[in-house]
């Protein structure tokens, strides 16, 4: 019982699909039955023709009738065979489409932590290879197994009717066939696994060689690397050849066994024909039937392989589908929608999941609506974590962060995100036009607004100098923007959304100081009308904020205005000093 439920559980998604699209399955089974039943009639007609000829009872018109019947039957079987693909395989593509959609939709809802622990390549592999393997299970495997089951049972029945003795003779060979395919199959599987393993070893070796190219070259290791690689390469082909030795046995063995069965039939059947207990037509038809079930028999092994691969792939997909977002909307008030943008952080301590070091310690901060707060501090002091938590990138304990006096855990994710415009240091732009990138979050593309936002972000001038202006495509076949241009585009993208809270996390790091000053001047109006948090390494960026907070090792060390902090905070004064040195250096030619 347990086994059975586990089996069903594993195939849950597949079964659900078949339930949704019953018609493809029902029709599919029906036409497969019809195809095979009709297909099995032809040998019988051949038998009748031969027997008639043998008894000298055949006439030309009879022969014509037989021939016509064979063609008509083939057309009928062909029509149903067409429908077989049109239903089952057709449906499997729908299954593929649906499962891929479900998978991608699920991906869109997964949190940051998932993307940190999963490689992009792995996600893509599951969305493509694994989905394809599952489809092969849902379509071709299902079609083939029904096909095999029906054609084998129909053919065997007819063979029994023709001659049970000969059938028994023929059947003696079949266990041999299945034992052999099974044995060889297992061995092939093991060898293939070894080859796969070795292939990854070889891949890792090349990976190391290429990644460490500087060391390889500096220490003249090329020849040695080639020598080692030759060893791996040699093992690889040796393994492949030992697989070839076994796999090479596969087809000859099958031909051999089938040949032996035919041989036996010919000998014993021939004797029976001679002594008159069966007709020649029977023998011929019998051989026809035998040959017609050879492929369906072999296909069973293929289906088993598809089943193993398909279920393994399905499991890999399910593993991601089972992953839930720890920041999903569970206990939220759907109407909670921050509008003023007052932020309050109370005694917030935080550590990343699976890490025992606290990155934030007892942080308390209140940002009144409409004010601008800047955060400075050395790399790794917790600045970015703090603002990411305002966006609930990770699970935040209840009552620690409030916006407009609402606990952020009560605010639906979408509303929270719409309320907070966030520009991180690492800019990501899509390979679309600049216009589409800036209007990424907008319902409608309104030219004036795009230009206005670009103007505030200080990128309008440069964009208009591109030959295609805002229609310029980015990425692969388009232009490559400089780091600073990217950052300003991302800024424009956030500005156009006009959120009550704006967070700029080191968003000008790749912009030179002069440009930054211009942007800040333009941004002034934007910042004044909303709550803003500025994170920066540059004192020039934060100098004019309403309040500056200095963070160190997860704590807020001091808060105040620029002038106050120079007096109050040693760390702040030190940063100011280093900064002016850097500026001096930069100014030198």
């Amino acid at each position, binding site marked *: 019982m347990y086994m059975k439920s586990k089996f069903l559980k594993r195939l849950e998604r597949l079964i659900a699909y078949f339930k949704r699209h019953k018609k493809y399955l029902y029709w599919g089974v029906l036409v497969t039955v019809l195809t095979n039943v009709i297909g099995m009639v032809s040998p019988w007609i051949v038998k009748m023709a031969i027997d008639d000829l043998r008894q000298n009872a055949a006439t030309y018109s009879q022969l014509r009738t037989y021939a016509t019947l064979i063609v008509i039957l083939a057309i009928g079987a062909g029509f149903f065979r067409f429908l077989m693909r049109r239903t089952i395989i057709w449906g499997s593509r729908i299954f593929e489409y649906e499962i891929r959609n479900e998978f991608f939709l699920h991906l*869109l809802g997964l949190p940051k932590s998932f993307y940190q622990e999963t490689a992009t390549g792995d996600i893509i592999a599951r969305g493509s290879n694994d989905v394809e393997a599952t489809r092969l299970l849902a379509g071709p495997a299902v079609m083939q197994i029904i096909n095999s089951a029906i054609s084998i049972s129909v053919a065997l029945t007819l063979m029994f009717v023709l001659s049970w003795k000969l059938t028994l003779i023929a059947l003696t060979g079949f266990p041999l066939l299945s034992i052999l395919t099974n044995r060889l199959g297992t061995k092939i599987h093991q060898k293939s696994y070894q080859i796969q393993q070795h292939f990854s070893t070889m891949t890792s070796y090349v990976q190391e060689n290429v990644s460490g190219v500087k060391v390889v070259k500096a220490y003249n290791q090329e020849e040695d690397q080639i020598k080692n690689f030759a060893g791996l390469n040699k093992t690889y082909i040796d393994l492949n050849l030992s697989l070839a030795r076994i796999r090479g046995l596969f087809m000859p063995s099958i031909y051999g066994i089938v040949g032996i069965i035919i041989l036996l039939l010919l000998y014993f059947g*021939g004797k029976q024909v001679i002594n008159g207990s069966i007709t020649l037509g029977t023998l011929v038809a019998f051989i026809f039937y035998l040959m017609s079930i050879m492929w369906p028999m072999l296909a069973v092994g293929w289906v088993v392989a598809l089943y193993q691969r398909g279920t393994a792939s399905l499991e890999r997909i399910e593993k991601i589908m089972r992953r839930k977002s720890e920041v999903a909307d569970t206990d939220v008030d759907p109407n909670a929608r921050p509008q003023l943008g007052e932020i309050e952080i109370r005694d917030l301590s935080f550590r990343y999941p699976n890490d025992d070091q606290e990155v934030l310690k007892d942080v308390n901060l209140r940002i009144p609506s409409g004010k601008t707060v800047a955060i400075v501090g050395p790399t790794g002091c917790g600045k970015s974590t703090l603002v990411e938590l305002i966006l609930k990138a990770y699970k935040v304990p209840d009552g620690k962060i409030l916006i407009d006096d609402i606990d952020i855990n009560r605010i639906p994710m979408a509303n929270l995100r719409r309320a907070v415009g966030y520009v*991180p240091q690492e800019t990501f732009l899509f390979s679309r036009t600049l216009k589409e990138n800036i209007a990424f979050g907008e319902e409608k593309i309104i030219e004036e607004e795009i230009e206005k936002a670009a103007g505030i972000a200080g990128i309008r001038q440069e964009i208009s100098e591109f030959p295609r202006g805002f229609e310029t495509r980015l990425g692969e076949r388009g232009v490559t923007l400089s780091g600073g241009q990217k950052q300003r585009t991302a800024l424009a993208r956030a500005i156009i959304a006009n959120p009550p809270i704006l967070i700029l996390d080191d968003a000008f790091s790749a912009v030179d100081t002069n440009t930054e000053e211009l942007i800040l001047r333009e941004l002034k109006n934007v910042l004044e009308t909303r709550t803003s948090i500025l994170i920066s390494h540059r004192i020039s960026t934060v100098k004019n904020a309403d309040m500056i907070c200095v963070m160190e090792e997860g704590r807020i060390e001091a808060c105040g205005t620029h002038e106050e902090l120079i007096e109050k905070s040693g760390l702040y004064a030190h940063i100011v000093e280093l900064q002016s040195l*850097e500026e001096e250096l930069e100014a030198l030619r």
Partner: protein
Amino acid sequence: MSDHQYFEDDALGKAYDSQLMKRLLQYVKPYKKWIVLALAILIISTLLRLAGPVIIKLAIDEYIAVGDADGLGRLALLYAGILLVQFFATWGQIYLMEWIGQKAMYDLRMKVFRHVQGLTMDFYDRNPVGRIITRVTSDINSLNELFSSGVVNIIGDLFTIFGIVGVMFVINSKLAAITLIALPLLIVATILFRIKVRHAYREIRRLIAKLNAFVQEHVSGISVVQNFVQERRIFNRFNDINRELMGRHHKSIIYYAVFFPTVEIISAISLGIIIWYGGGQVIQGAMTFGTLVAFSQYMEMFYRPIRDLSEKYNILQSAMASSERVFKLLDTKPAFKTPAKPVITDGLKGEIKFKDVWFAYNKDEWVLKDINLHIRTGEKVAFVGATGSGKTSMTNLILRFYDYQKGSITLDGKELKDFDGETIRKNISLVLQDVFLFSGTIEDNIRLGNGDISREQVKKAAEDVNLLRLGNGLKRGLDTNVGERGGMLSVGQRQLVSFARALAYNPRILILDEATSSVDTETEVIIQKATETLMKGRTSIIIAHRLSTIKQVDKIVVVHKGRICEIGSHDELLAKKGIYYNLYQLQYKDQELPAAV
């Protein structure tokens, strides 16, 4: 911005390109004799397989029809013999072909790997690691498929087809001719199908590549999608591509669904003709039963290979695309070559001179401008400057990783361009900021592949840098496994392994790019001492990040925006209050604090 380069690999070209094929055949040429043998066996095994229906014909006509049971027994024995030979012939042929394919693949893979080893650094800058790996590994695998399944199967199928036609004509040419009336129909159907499917297949590949690129891009930019609450809209876009892909698949299903039954109907027409016309011949006594039965069996054997040809077409297509990429890599030339008659030397002294040197990684974007510098034998020099100022580029030129465009660099008075890169590097040990360790033991990593370095020397080097004194993780001493990328070692241990490596090679020149990572005081002291040991008695160029190091060197070279601005000792330069003074305050001054406490 997203990187679509991964997916260029999905693009597909022609299924057959004579130019490419010619090049590919070069790699099987050494095995010409074996190929001839394999083809001979292939012919034999095909012919033997074709013997089956003839045997049945003989059995019916000669023995069963006349009631000769003994003869039937003899024929059965003959058939058994044929089966046995056929078994070994087929096996041998499959194995032999695989053997040739694997050998050729081995050769080609070695050639590609060797070629990659010989390429200059700019190649590695331009190509992501993943792409190079794919060329060396999987792309070559699909070539193997081409040899062992594609080409041979196609040849085998062609043999079968022509063999059947031949045998049928021998048995009864008139019936054969009439039976094959349907053949043109089949050829037309196959050609039409191939054209349709090729187009559909290409479209499908294009859409799959597009879909993968879409997922790749939006997974990379997931935070933007989520922060702007665009999940719905992005999903709709995905859905559009996905739906289009399904549509294409459905279209191609129709092609297959029509093609396969068509082949069967044509085959049935042939069978009908055999019964009708052949049966008529039997009535007239112009033909035997056995012939009738044999013909109908040949028909069964005739159509399968034709059906299979369409699938092999795909193998051919992707193998061609792979080989095109591999050959493109093989055609990549190193940016500069070793001179025909390189300088021969049995040991360098280690004097380096830069004279009016200009250098750019990309044309006209000068990274080094008008560099003049003289480093005397045995001198210790520190390169100091902000990130991106050009320090590493200078060391890259000395190591001959890149070629300089203007000016001259000399080593012991001889132009660097006249040397073989290997000769230069034999005399230089490089220690990188990001230590790169290969998987293996500590000893492997110190010696690398150099068999001339004895275990004693490895041990001595490790002792000289106090490697084994650091921490207690190295329970197995030099035999400790460092793990992938040295992950089992601490930052300090990794540093020291690379120091010991440099020391064991006992070079004339040392280039050391100091690590910026902060380590605990004990490690710091050990590294400091090891640095001293390393520099002792050799020309040393240090890209310095440690105050202790710059205080030890003979002269400091200040690099700023690609130019050398100041040269002098620590005290001289500080007194000058120029760039060095600034840099010192920025980069090194903080390091004085722990010493003062």
